[in-house]
């Protein structure tokens, strides 16, 4: 069972919100003693997802949580927007697929950087992405 120890919520509505958000994620990761490599992976994943939310979902809410499961501590990030949603999730998770003008690495690349990855989306209603990075994961 996952227990939430600490919760932080930020509204992301413009590009300039990204850097403070990344810093906040870093603070949380440092606080639980996450190593530098995992920290970098987590912040990079956060950066990708928050950009997706801005670009495709028109902004939304980003939640940062310190969580623990048994002896393990980690950071859970939740991104929820009320954008158009993703039509075909399996296609969106494919390397190199993009509807924008990016490289199409965002979602599949991000999945590789975190310990747990979950994407829920409904067309016309919005998208919620949840990722967890365990301290030693």
């Amino acid at each position, binding site marked *: 069972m996952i227990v939430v120890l600490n919760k932080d919520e930020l509204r992301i509505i413009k590009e300039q919100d990204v*850097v403070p958000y990344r810093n906040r994620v870093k603070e949380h990761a440092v606080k639980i003693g996450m190593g530098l490599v995992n920290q970098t992976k987590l912040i990079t994943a956060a950066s990708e997802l928050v950009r997706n939310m801005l670009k495709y979902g028109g902004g939304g809410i980003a939640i940062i949580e310190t969580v623990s499961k048994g002896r393990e501590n980690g950071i859970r990030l939740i991104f929820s927007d009320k954008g158009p949603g993703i039509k075909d999730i399996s296609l969106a998770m494919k390397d190199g697929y993009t509807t924008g003008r990016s490289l199409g690495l965002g979602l599949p690349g991000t999945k590789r950087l975190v310990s747990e990855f979950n994407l829920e989306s409904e067309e016309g209603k919005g998208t919620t992405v949840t990722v967890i990075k365990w301290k030693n994961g």
Partner: protein
Amino acid sequence: MDKIPILKMSDFLLVTIQVDLYDQLAENLESDLINMVKKYNSHGVLIDISAVSIIDSFMGRILGNIAMMSKILDAETVVVGMQPAVAITLIELGLPLKGVHSALNVEKGMALLRSKIHNIEQDTLTDDSSTE
């Protein structure tokens, strides 16, 4: 408006990124740099990213673009000082930074740029002599 300073050093342009870049800032850097390459007729661009703690796919694309754009303006790009954790993350993300040369530090980066330009000059010299 924030701006990343670009320094001209003889034939080269030198950029040190010391802040976390947001998208607009990175895009401005890209266009400023390309304009400066043309303006100063530079043959090399050196980008120091030793203070950059994360590079995501957007930032990676900007670096790749700078390298490719400089290349067609006859300038080489070297990225120096990447942190090991950033390198690990980039590869796992699936971003190999094609077309971007790299070096461990500014000194080695400068040496690499010089050797590349030197080679090109020598090549053209030998080409000239062979046609004569």
